[in-house]
């Protein structure tokens, strides 16, 4: 376990190395969150994976060229330029295969990804034999080697992150259009092809930046996981961009801190694991389509339906007896529920002050409960009558359906039904049928 002193040192960014790595990956996380959101919405997640694998031969080729011209083969800028060029070639190859053969997207991505990666491995092996310049560090790009980062790298990442944020701000309307409805966009005269290309170029830049810290195998995770997690927190594009950037940034920070504190924790994979953790949390607890929220909504709906069922049953019993009192048995009789269910439901609605239990053991519908029950019954009858009038189906046949539909009848829909029906056929108000307190 790391000592307290160590933790403080890491968190306060006292070490030069830690500072560089933490700031660098935070900038990277933010930038990839922003671009990744659009990538995800454009359904290109795995194209980015192919792109990152395709950078490997680019790194090797750039190294060879630089050595051949007598430069230091380790120039990061040179290597990343090579990576960028090959990443773009990879994307073009995918498009080429998709448009000129009958193969589908998945195969095109798989072919480019694996063949170019294989080529990269071959070239790297050859590069290690070059007499001048040591290629030993090049394979660090595969799994990432955050510890090799220096201050200038972190600065570059910061500058790129800020520029990408600016581009995203300027183009976020256009890119949203591109992702949502490409055809409409082009019919409106937007240069969708160029917007698309610019988006892929941004993806390529972020991927290339991610090579050094998280490595090319996992670069795609930085792009898609924060964005996919953000989707569970909001369905609007601007908050989603902010959320994705924050999640990416936070994961980068946590990952860098953990790997600085715990021995033998490679930075890249740890960052990805933390992103994954974020995804799991969002997937389960996110307020938009999260697992918990969806279960809760369903539970809530079921409860509401049950509540309305019991209200209607009570109302029907009271209506036929012309007194607002009833027994449990009479409810059991009209609905096909068992005793236990009825008592459970009655206890629930009694908490809402719809009913009270009389000392005699009978139940009494309150004024408040009466009004609510009347509303439910009225909706139900409107719908039922509507179906009878318009759909030529026997009334007994309609009942079950109407039970389902009534729970979704809002006020405006009911108003529509009233208009469609004869005024005389609208059910009478509860007070007019002789039931009084």
């Amino acid at each position, binding site marked *: 376990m790391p000592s307290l002193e160590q933790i403080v040192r890491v968190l306060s960014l006292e070490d030069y190395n830690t500072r560089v790595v933490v700031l660098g990956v935070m900038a990277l996380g933010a930038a990839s969150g922003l671009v990744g959101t659009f990538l995800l919405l454009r359904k290109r997640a795995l194209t980015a994976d192919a792109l990152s694998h395709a950078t490997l031969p680019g790194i090797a080729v750039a190294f060879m060229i630089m050595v051949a011209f007598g430069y230091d083969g380790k120039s990061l800028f040179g290597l990343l330029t090579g990576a960028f060029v090959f990443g773009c070639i990879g994307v073009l190859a995918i498009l080429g295969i998709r448009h000129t*053969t009958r193969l589908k997207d998945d195969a095109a991505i798989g*072919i480019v990804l694996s063949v170019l990666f*294989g080529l990269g491995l071959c070239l790297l092996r050859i590069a290690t034999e070059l007499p001048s310049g040591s290629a030993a560090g090049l394979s660090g790009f595969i799994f990432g080697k955050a510890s090799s980062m220096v201050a200038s790298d972190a600065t570059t990442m910061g500058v790129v992150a800020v520029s990408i944020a600016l581009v995203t701000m300027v183009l976020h309307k256009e890119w949203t259009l591109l992702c949502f409805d490409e055809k409409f966009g082009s019919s409106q005269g937007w240069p969708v092809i160029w917007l698309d290309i610019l988006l892929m170029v941004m993806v390529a830049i972020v991927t290339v930046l991610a090579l050094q810290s998280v490595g090319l195998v996992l670069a795609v995770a930085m792009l898609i996981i924060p964005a996919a997690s953000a989707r569970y927190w909001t369905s609007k594009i601007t908050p989603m961009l902010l959320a994705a950037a924050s999640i990416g940034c936070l994961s980068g920070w946590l990952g860098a801190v953990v790997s600085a504190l715990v021995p033998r924790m*490679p930075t890249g994979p740890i960052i990805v694991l933390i992103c*994954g953790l974020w995804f799991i949390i969002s997937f389960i607890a996110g307020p938009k389509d999260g697992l918990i929220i969806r279960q809760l909504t369903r539970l809530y709906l079921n409860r509401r339906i049950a509540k309305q069922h019991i209200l209607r049953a009570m109302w029907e019993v009271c209506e036929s007896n012309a007194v607002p009192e009833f027994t449990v048995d009479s409810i059991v009789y009209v609905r096909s529920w068992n005793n236990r269910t009825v008592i459970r439901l009655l206890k629930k609605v009694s908490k809402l002050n719809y009913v009270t239990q009389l000392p005699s053991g009978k139940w009494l519908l309150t004024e408040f409960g009466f009004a609510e029950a009347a509303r439910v019954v009225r909706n139900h009858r409107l719908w039922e009558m509507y179906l009878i009038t318009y759909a030529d189906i026997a009334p007994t046949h309609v009942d079950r359906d109407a039970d389902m539909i009534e729970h979704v009848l809002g006020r405006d829909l009911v108003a529509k039904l009233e208009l469609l029906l004869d005024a005389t056929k609208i059910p009478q108000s509860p007070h007019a049928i002789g039931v009084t307190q």
Partner: protein
Amino acid sequence: MTWSIIDTWIVIIGGLCAAGCAIPGAILVLRKMSLMGDAISHTVLPGIAIAFLITGSRDPMAMLIGSVVVGLVTAFLVQAIQTFGKVEAGASMGIVFTVLFAFGLVLMRQAVDHVDIDPDCVLYGSIELAWFDQDPEGLGIPRGAIVNGVMLLANLLLLLLFYKEFKITSFDPALAKAQGFQPSFMHYMLMTMTAATAVAAFETVGSILVVAMFIVPPATAYLLTNRFSMMFILAIFLSVLAAIIGHISAITIPTWFGFSGTSTAGAMAVATGALFLVAWVVSPLDGMLVRMWHLFSTRLHVVREDILGVLWRLEERGQKELLLVQLSEAIGTTPFLVKISLQLLQKRNVVSKTKLFWSLTDCGRKQAAAIVRSHRLWEVYLDKHFPQDVHQLHQSAERLEHITTPEMQVKLGNAKEDPHGSQVPADE
């Protein structure tokens, strides 16, 4: 190039491994799920790492079980995130396999004291050293050959056993389900095959290059055949070929430039890519060359008909012959295409050449009349049904005249004069 027994075994092991991958790979490609192969071959790593940590040894059975379990978990998670989380298939795969792969890497770093395996070996495989890892009975057969051979046989057996089930569930899952063949059962069987094959192959070619073996040869076969059975035969053939070419190029091509050699596994992946490239260009079904030839021959056909049309209209105005340059100007195409077309027409005895001037023969005049007739009838038809300005009429008719079949010709009617007032040549 020096060839030794080691090289022979490298090629044999590579070939067995590639052929074994081609079988589940072909089904994956046909189901448009090839990237599941990618995802599962990545998640072999955590499977192996977990097996190492639990058993503390490199027991192949434990590795196999670990990877297959993690592979099935991958397939299940991808499906679950896709359906419950409303995430598209690609992103769902991307999330699952990167997280699991990262988990595997961390485990491996943590376990580095207990077992000797490094991530690089997982990436590149160790086919070059496979020969030295002999079987315990001392038959002189490397373990890699046995493992991959058994996997190939198992895959072949499953393919033969469930041949028609794989066919129907891949082509029409709804019908398969209605007939009682469980598509989800076949799906998880395929996933099991994929995971088992990936773990058998990873020592040979590494976990990422397995993807090349899974996807590229079957995709190449897909370009070359229209038959389901051929798809497998070709995929196996191509993958073995790629293994052979791959190793030979790995030990020869770098030596031309003064290097000693390169990664055999990488070269095999590149070889599958090279074979794909060849098929992409020359495939007789719809390769680039075939596509280009179709374009070119249609173009030539149009130019030939245009030449006849131009010469016929010329005679209508009382002239008789034209220079090649004038013809190409009148048609609006390059003199090169006109020249080729004229040569063919001359061979068919449709046009004749006197000095530098070209004119119609009697036989050519008949053909030309038919073309002009069709053009002018189209103009009449278009003018009647889709009124538009006279210039556009000509443009549209120009395109339509080349594709008119005899039946269409009959339906076009029998007008005597076109909208411009020119005579329609009589039908002969």
